[in-house]
C-alpha cells in the first residue's frame, strides 16, 4: 500500500497522458509537452481534482446520511424519492440552488458579500489536502499537518464575520458576532485537547499520530481530551446544541440570512465540509485512523482500499453521533455557551494534558498497554 500514494498515482497518470500526447505530436512540440515541470504541474492538478471530487461527493453523501439518520430519529424516513433511498436528493437540491438567481442586498458590501462565502468555502476545502485518509494518501511530506489543519480550520470565524457584516442586516450581524465569539472561545480548548494527543504520540504529523495508535486507540486513555475535542468540534461546526449563530428561532438564519442560491449552497457545503473535517479529525486523533485493532481478522483489513473503507466507516459513525446529539438536544444560550467554553472546557482540557503527561511518564497502563514510543 505504501508504495502507491495518491500523488504517485496522479503523477503516473499525468506522465502517461503527456507522454502519450508527445508521441503523436511533432518532436519540437513533444519535448515541450513532456517537460518534467509540466508533468509535475499536471500531476498536482489531477491530485487536486481527485481530492475536490472526493471531498465534495463525501460531503453530499454526508448530508444524505444526516437526513436519513435525523429522519429515523424523528420517526420518519428522510429523503426517499430521488435515487435509491433518496441518495441523489442532495444532488438535485444542489442543482436547484445552482440554477437560482443570487442577489445582493441594497448597500451590502460587494467584496465582503461575495468574497466571504468564497473564502469560507476555499479554506474549508484546503484542509482536505492536508488530512491523510489512508496510509497511501500522502507520503507525510509535511511534518506539522495537525497544526496546519487546525490553523486553516480556524480561519472560518473571520470569513463568517466578514460576510455577516457586509450583508448589512441586523440578524446577520448578530449571528456573525455570536459565531466569532463562539469559535474563538472553543478554539482554545480544542487546541489544548490536541496537545494531549501530541504529548502522547510525540508528533504533530497526523500520519505519525495514527501509527502511534497501534497498541491502543487514544480515545481510551485520553477520554477527557476526546470529550473536550468533540464538544469543541460541535461548537466549531455550529451544530445543535451549539448552533446559536444560525439559531433559526430568533435570528432567522443567523449570519447567512441574506444569502440565497449558490452562495447559500456555498455556506451549506462549507458547513458540511467542516463537519466532515471534524469527524475525520476525531477519527485520526482518537480512533486510530485507517488502522484496525489486531484482534480484527486480517481478511477484514487486507482487501484493496481497506484503509480508506474503514476510515470512512469510522468517520460516518462519528458523524452519526453528531447527528444523534443534534436530534436529541436543545440549543444553549450565548452566555451559557461562553461560560461553558471558558469555565469548564479549558480546565477540562488542562486536566487532559495533565493526564497525558502522566500517561507518558508511567509509560504503561493496566488495561490499554504501553505507549509505543515514549513521547517527545
Amino acid at each position, binding site marked *: 500500500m505504501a508504495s502507491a500514494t495518491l500523488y504517485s498515482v496522479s503523477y503516473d497518470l499525468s506522465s502517461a497522458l503527456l507522454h502519450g500526447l508527445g508521441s503523436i505530436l511533432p518532436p519540437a512540440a513533444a519535448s515541450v509537452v513532456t517537460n518534467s515541470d509540466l508533468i509535475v504541474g499536471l500531476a498536482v492538478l489531477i491530485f487536486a481534482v481527485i481530492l475536490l471530487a472526493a471531498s465534495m461527493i463525501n460531503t453530499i453523501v454526508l448530508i444524505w446520511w444526516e437526513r436519513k439518520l435525523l429522519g429515523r430519529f424523528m420517526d420518519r424516513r428522510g429523503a426517499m424519492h430521488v435515487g435509491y433511498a433518496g441518495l441523489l436528493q442532495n444532488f438535485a437540491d444542489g442543482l436547484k440552488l445552482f440554477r437560482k438567481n443570487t442577489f445582493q442586498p441594497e448597500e451590502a458590501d460587494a467584496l465582503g458579500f461575495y468574497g466571504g462565502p468564497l473564502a469560507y468555502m476555499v479554506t474549508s476545502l484546503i484542509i482536505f489536502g492536508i488530512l491523510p485518509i489512508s496510509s497511501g494518501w500522502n507520503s507525510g511530506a509535511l511534518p506539522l499537518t495537525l497544526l496546519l489543519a487546525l490553523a486553516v480550520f480556524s480561519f472560518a470565524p473571520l470569513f463568517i464575520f466578514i460576510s455577516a457584516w457586509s450583508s448589512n442586516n441586523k440578524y446577520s450581524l448578530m449571528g456573525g458576532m455570536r459565531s466569532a465569539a463562539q469559535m474563538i472561545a472553543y478554539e482554545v480548548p480544542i487546541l489544548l485537547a490536541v496537545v494531549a494527543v501530541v504529548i502522547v504520540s510525540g508528533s504533530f504529523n497526523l500520519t505519525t499520530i495514527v501509527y502511534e495508535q497501534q497498541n491502543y486507540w487514544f480515545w481510551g486513555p485520553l477520554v477527557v481530551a476526546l470529550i473536550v475535542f468533540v464538544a469543541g468540534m460541535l461548537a466549531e461546526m455550529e451544530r445543535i446544541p451549539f448552533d446559536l449563530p444560525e439559531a433559526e428561532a430568533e435570528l432567522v438564519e443567523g449570519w447567512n440570512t441574506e444569502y440565497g442560491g449558490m452562495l447559500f449552497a456555498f455556506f451549506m457545503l462549507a458547513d458540511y465540509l467542516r463537519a466532515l473535517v471534524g469527524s475525520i479529525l476525531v477519527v485520526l486523533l482518537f480512533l486510530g485512523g485507517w488502522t484496525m485493532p489486531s484482534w480484527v481478522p486480517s481478511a477484514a483489513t487486507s482487501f484493496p482500499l481497506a484503509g480508506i473503507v474503514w476510515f470512512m466507516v469510522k468517520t460516518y459513525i462519528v458523524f452519526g453521533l453528531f447527528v444523534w446529539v443534534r*436530534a436529541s438536544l436543545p*440549543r444553549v444560550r*450565548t452566555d451559557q455557551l461562553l461560560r461553558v467554553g471558558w469555565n469548564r472546557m479549558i480546565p477540562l482540557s488542562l486536566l487532559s494534558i495533565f493526564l497525558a503527561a502522566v500517561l507518558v511518564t508511567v509509560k504503561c497502563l493496566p488495561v490499554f498497554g504501553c505507549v509505543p514510543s515514549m513521547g517527545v
Partner: protein
Amino acid sequence: MSEMWINMGPQHPMTHGLWNLRVKIDGEMILDVDPEMGYLHRGIEKISEDRHYNEVITLMDRCCYVAGFAWEHLYILSAEEALHLRPPERAEYLRVLCDEFQRIGSHLMWYAAFVQDLGLMSPFLYGMRDRDLVLDLFQSYTGARMTYEYMRVGGVRNDLPPGFSDQARKVLDWLDARFPEYDQLCLGSTIFRERCDNLGLLKASDCVAHGVTGPMLRSAGMKRDLRKDRPYAAYDRLDFEVAVADGADVTARYLVRMEEMRQSVRILRQVLDWLDHHPGPVLADRLPRWLGAPYAPIGNEGYLLKRNYPKGVGFSAVEEPHGEAQAYVVNDGGEHPYRVKFRSPVFANISAARQYLVGYHVADIPPIMGSVDVCVGEVDR
C-alpha cells in the same frame, strides 16, 4: 454594539403567526419590547353581524386554527343564551369531547412549536405526529381536520360514527404512553432546564394586572380554571383536577400544559364512557325555523318567522387552550346577531410582553414567547 430596534416579525420564525415583536436590544440584552398586532385582522366580529347565527360558526373556526372547537363552543354558548335555547345533554358531552380533544391537539401543537424554538428537533415531529391522531379523530366525525363547523346553535351537527369510542380510547392510551417520553426529552435535559428555569417570570399579581389567563396564570400558582370556577357544558359533572404549578417561569408553563393534557385524557375517558351509555338526540328539537335544520339552507321563510322572536343577550366564557376566552352576543330579534364581541386571551397574554421579556437575552425570546402559546388568528380576529 450600540442599542438598536429590531423587528421580529411580521415574517419571522419566532412569531408563529403574523404579528410583529419590536425589540430594543443592546448586544444580546433586551431593553424594551413593543408587540404590534393587527396584521391578521379579518373583521370577524363585523362580518358576524351580516350572517345568520349558524353561519357565524364558520368564522369561529378561523379565529384560532389550532383551537377551532374551543371558539365554536364559546360562540355557541353565548348565542344559545341570547336565543334562549338549551342543547340536549348528549350535545353538551359531545362538546366537551370536542373541547378536550382540541385542548390536547392545541397543546401538542404548542409543544411542537415550543421545542422547535428551543432547537429540539425530534420532539417537534413527535408532537406533530401525535396531534395527527387527534386530527384523524376529528375527521372521522366532522369530516374536517381543522375547520370543523360541527357545533350548532342548539346542539351539534351529527352524532359520532360507530366505532368512534374504541378508536378514541386507542388514541388516549397511545397519548398516555407518550407523555413520559415528552417529559424525558424536555425536563430530563439539563440544557432544557438551564434554558427554561427562571425564564420569563410573570408573577400571579402581574398576571392579574395584565389580564393574563390560562396556563400562564396557573403556572404562577393561581388556581383559576373556568371549567371549575364557572362550569359550562358538562364540566360540572366530570371529575378532574386543575393543573397548577408555582414557578411562574417557562418550565412551570410547560408543566401546567403537560398536566392539562393528562387531565384532558382523564376527562375524555369519562366522557366516552358517558356517551357509550347515553344515546339520544344531539340537536334541540324545538329550534326556531329560521335557524334551520343542520344541513338545510336557510330559505326566505326565515324572514317571515323571525319577527316575534324574543330579544336577548348572551355572555359566555370558555377555558380555551390558551386562556379565558369570552364572547358577548346581542340578539335584537333579527336573523343576524346585532353585535358580537370576543375577548381573546392571547391578546392579553401578548400585551404583557414587556413584563416577561425585558431583561432577558435575545435568545430567550423564542422560548418565552413559545411558552405563551401565541395564536394570532384569535388575537386579531
